Structures are given as structure tokens and as C-alpha cells.
């Protein structure tokens, strides 16, 4: 097991190299330069100042030299400084990551909490009215555009009813609140973003859960369990559920890139200062160092998610061995 984990972790390195080369190429080969927004559009900036900026950012060097310079710094976790405000990229990201993580972890938990019972119950009652209703519900849930749902809920709960805040993660008077109220304040701000970001994967996951459960329920060992005279609930929740939940772990690992990508829209709509919004702003401002850093970190998280899924899969299912 240890050997396997080490091997997988080492395999991340060439993948990350490939990812960084593609990202670097895509961003830098595009026409236009990051100094345009501060120079060409501003008549007060002289040609010399523009040249100076280009040299300062190292944009005058050939592409492969720029890439190697970037890579050399990366080894020491130095992502450079942001073009827009001169802050260290790593500090900017460190502020944003916890917020995005919090929202994603909450929405994964919420999603599993709802999706697994839906999947299990519709598999047990296969073909019933409940099952058919849930099928339709799942297809609709899967098709709802997240940003549209976000706006509709915002306008209903936030503006029409005035129950929930619509922007940011804290109220204006946050600093004056007691610890307990601070907690509730953040919670209130997170209800809508968490709900919206989990709805798509909720639909997909309950579908996977249902089909996985159906497959298990037709296995011989379930017949054996029934033949032994076990109660139906014991058969379903002890024998079947344990086995049916295994594939879900893998799917959860694969859903990481979607969650990270989805945070762009959720965070832009709700004005949440997380990774997604930082990325969006950097893209708009052509802030190369920040864009590169977030692409690489996002890909790293994806790779780690996949490895974690494989490892937990093998821990959960003793038949799977990754030795050698």
C-alpha cells in the first residue's frame, strides 16, 4: 500500500509538468500583453516606461526561458508577484483557498446527505411512483443552470422575502458581533451558495447511487442474506448499502475539477472572495502569475482527489489491492 501511494504521488510530477506547459503556452501565446492594460490604454505612460515594465516582468525573453524561470521559482513554492497589485501570489491565494474549501466541503456533505438516501430509497422501491418522481426530479435537477437557480433564489429569498443576505460571506457589522453571532452570520451567508453549488452533483450522485444499489440488490449474497431470514432493513442498510457505496467514492474523487470550476460562477454571483472569483478577476486583468498559479493548484487538487479516491476505495474494499 505504502509503495503504491508513493508511486502515485511521484506520478503527479510529470502530469503537473505537462499541465503547466500547456497552461503557460495557452496564456502566453495569445496576442496582447499584460502591460497593455496599464500602458497602451493610458496615454500618460511613455514608450520607455512600457519597455521597462516588459523587461521587469521578463516578458522580453523567449518563451521557453520565461517558462524555465517560472518553473525554477515554483520549486520553492514561489509563484511570483501579482501584476495587478504587486502582492505575492501565494499570499493572495492563501486568503482565498479556505473560503472556497469551506463552501465545497459543506456542499459535498450536504449533497451526500441528501443524494444517498434518495438513491437508496428509489432503488429499493424500483418502478414505484416515488422512484419515477425522483427520476424526473433528478433529470430536472441536473439540467438546472446553477447561475440561474442562484439568481432566482437570490431574488426570492434575498430580495422579495428578505430572509437571506445576497452578497459576500459576512455582514457589514461582522466585526462587532459576538463569536456565536459571527458563526450564524457566516452560516446565513453560506446557505444559498452551498445549496446552489450542490444541486447539480446532488442529482448526478443520487442517480449513481440508485444504479449502484440496484446492481447490488440483484447479487447472490443479497439473496443469501434474505434466505437467512434477515429483516429487510438489515439486508438493505447493512449488506447492500455497504457494497453499493463503493463506486460513489471514485465518483466523488472525479467530481473535484467540476467543483473547483463551478466556484467561479457561484463566487462571482454571490460576491464571495474565494479562488473562483480571484481567478475570474485575474483572467479579466491578464494577471499571468495568478492565472498560472491557480491553474496549477487546481490541477494538483484534482490529481490529489483522484489518488485519494483510489486509496479510500482500496481501504473500503479489501478485494482491491494496488500492490506492485
Amino acid at each position, binding site marked *: 500500500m505504502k509503495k503504491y501511494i508513493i508511486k502515485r504521488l511521484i506520478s503527479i510530477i510529470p502530469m503537473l509538468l505537462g499541465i503547466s506547459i500547456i497552461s503557460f503556452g495557452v496564456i502566453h501565446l495569445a496576442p496582447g500583453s499584460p502591460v497593455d492594460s496599464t500602458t497602451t490604454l493610458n496615454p500618460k505612460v511613455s514608450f520607455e516606461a512600457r519597455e521597462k515594465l516588459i523587461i521587469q516582468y521578463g516578458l522580453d525573453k523567449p518563451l521557453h526561458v520565461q517558462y524555465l524561470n517560472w518553473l525554477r521559482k515554483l520549486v520553492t513554492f514561489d509563484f511570483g508577484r501579482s501584476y495587478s497589485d504587486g502582492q505575492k501570489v501565494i499570499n493572495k491565494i492563501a486568503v482565498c483557498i479556505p473560503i472556497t474549501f469551506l463552501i465545497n466541503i459543506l456542499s459535498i456533505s450536504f449533497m451526500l446527505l441528501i443524494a444517498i438516501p434518495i438513491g437508496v430509497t428509489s432503488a429499493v422501491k424500483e418502478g414505484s411512483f416515488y422512484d419515477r418522481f425522483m427520476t424526473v426530479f433528478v433529470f430536472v435537477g*441536473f439540467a438546472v443552470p446553477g447561475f440561474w437557480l442562484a439568481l432566482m433564489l437570490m431574488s426570492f429569498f434575498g430580495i422579495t422575502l428578505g430572509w437571506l443576505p445576497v452578497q459576500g460571506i459576512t455582514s457589514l457589522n461582522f466585526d462587532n458581533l459576538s463569536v456565536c453571532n459571527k458563526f450564524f452570520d457566516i452560516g446565513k451567508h453560506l446557505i444559498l451558495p452551498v445549496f446552489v453549488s450542490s444541486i447539480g452533483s446532488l442529482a448526478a450522485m443520487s442517480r449513481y447511487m440508485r444504479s449502484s444499489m440496484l446492481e447490488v440488490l440483484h447479487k447472490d449474497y443479497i439473496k443469501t442474506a434474505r434466505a437467512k431470514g434477515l429483516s429487510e432493513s438489515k439486508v438493505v442498510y447493512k449488506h447492500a448499502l455497504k457494497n453499493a457505496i463503493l463506486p460513489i467514492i471514485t465518483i466523488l474523487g472525479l467530481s473535484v475539477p467540476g467543483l473547483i470550476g463551478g466556484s467561479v460562477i457561484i463566487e462571482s454571483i454571490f460576491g464571495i472572495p474565494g479562488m473562483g472569483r480571484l481567478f475570474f478577476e485575474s483572467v479579466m486583468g491578464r494577471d499571468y502569475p495568478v492565472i498560472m498559479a491557480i491553474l496549477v493548484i487546481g490541477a494538483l487538487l484534482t490529481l490529489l482527489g483522484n489518488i485519494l479516491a483510489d486509496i479510500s476505495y482500496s481501504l473500503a474494499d479489501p478485494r482491491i489491492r494496488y500492490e506492485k
Partner: protein
Amino acid sequence: MRNSKNKLALFGALMVGGLTLMAIFAPLIAPFNPSDIDIEDALLSPSRAHIFGTDHLGRDLFSRIIFGARISLSIGFVAVGISVLIGLVIGSVAGYYGKSIDTILMRFVDIMLCFPSFFLILAVVAVLEPNIINIMIVIGITSWMGVARLIRAEILSLKEREFILASKAIGASDLRIIVRHLIPNAIAPVLVSAVLGVAAAVLLEASLSFLGLGVQPPTPSWGNILMEGKASLGVCWWLMFFPGFFILITVLGYNLLGEGLREYFNPKKKI
């Protein structure tokens, strides 16, 4: 049409067909010119004259949505066309030639799959100019990996079959074997994934246009109608409700149709 699943697929096909007809015959259906500005009629709620109401410039929302269908659906189709084409080429080359070519191409697929794809799309769109053609290309080149994997897997199992050995024996070229014999036999799962892909591409286009990085106004697309409607959030519900609703039924229709096709081609595997 035995069970409810087939009914759902039929329902999906009807929705897809209806929306496509709507897009094709947009000029005949739309009661107004979608870009006619009439400030005096701005922000009217739905009425008999304007069944979906009007936007902040007094343009008829129903007409804009119908013409938006043309943009949104054609982006979906072309983007999927591009991704299927790339996927077919890469997948069949990897599957047919195998060995190191296969390893290199599949590693490349793995790398592409590791990008949080929306981040990659945003980065590419932002450095290119956001317009309809670029959106199609960008969605296409970031979503071909599934097709490549499907076609490779099919070809790996097909290429050892006797009919392929036979055509090799009579001296058919590699290109001919791939294009005439392998791909037609491996196309079913690709078709399913293409239908599902249209839904995903429509959703992506809407998200991009909503962020202002997609189709640029005044050309109407469902995403940018929503973006413009955001300004009157909580006041004019119709400006957001209707475009989003059309995105919803489009995605729903294609998903239902895709799932139905999957079941038709492969009745054993249920999702």
C-alpha cells in the same frame, strides 16, 4: 415504448425537435424584431402584446429568446462537432496504432482531464477575443477527451476481429480501415456522448455569456440575456426567468434523449 424510461426519451426528443424548429424558423415565429429598441416600452411585464415582457431597452423578450436559440443551439452543435472530430482522430489513432503512440496520446488525455475545465476555458476565452466562433472552438477543444477514450476503447476490441484482419489481408490502407470499418462500428457510444455533449455545451455557453466572456450583446444568446437581466434582479423577474427556463428545457431535452439512446444501444447498462 414499453416503460417510463422510453417515454422520457420520447419526451426529450420532442423537446429537442421543438427547440430546433423554433431556432430554424425564428424569423417566422418571433412577433417583433429582436433588436428593435423602444425606450417607451422598457421593462414591461408580460402582457398579451409582449408575452414574455420587454427588457431595459424595450426589446421584446420573447423574440430575443427565439433568436437567442439560434445562437445558443448553433454554438452547442458546432462545439460538439469540433470535440467529436478531435476525439475521433485522437482516439482512433491511439487505439489503432497502440504502443508508444497510444501511451503518449492517452497521457495527453489524462493531462487535459486534470484541468478544472471551466478555469481552462475561461483562461482561453479571455486571452482570445470573446466572440461566437472563438466560443465554439474553445468549448470544442476542451471537451473532446471523453469521445477519445470511448472510441479508443471500442477500437481496441474491434481491431482484433476477423473482418479487420480480412481487410488488412486484402491490402486496405490504415486510413480506410479506420474510417470505413472501425469508426462506423464504434460510433454508437460516441453518438450518445455527443447528444449529452450538446446539453453541456449549451450550459457552458450560457455560463460564459453570463460572465460577459461569451457572446457579446447586442447579439442575443440565452446567457447574455440573463446577464443583462441581472441588473433588474428582484424587480423584473421575467428577464431572468424565461431565458433560464429555455436553457433548462434544452439541457433537459438533450439529456433525456441521450439517456434514451444509451439505453437503446446498450440495454444492459443502466444509469
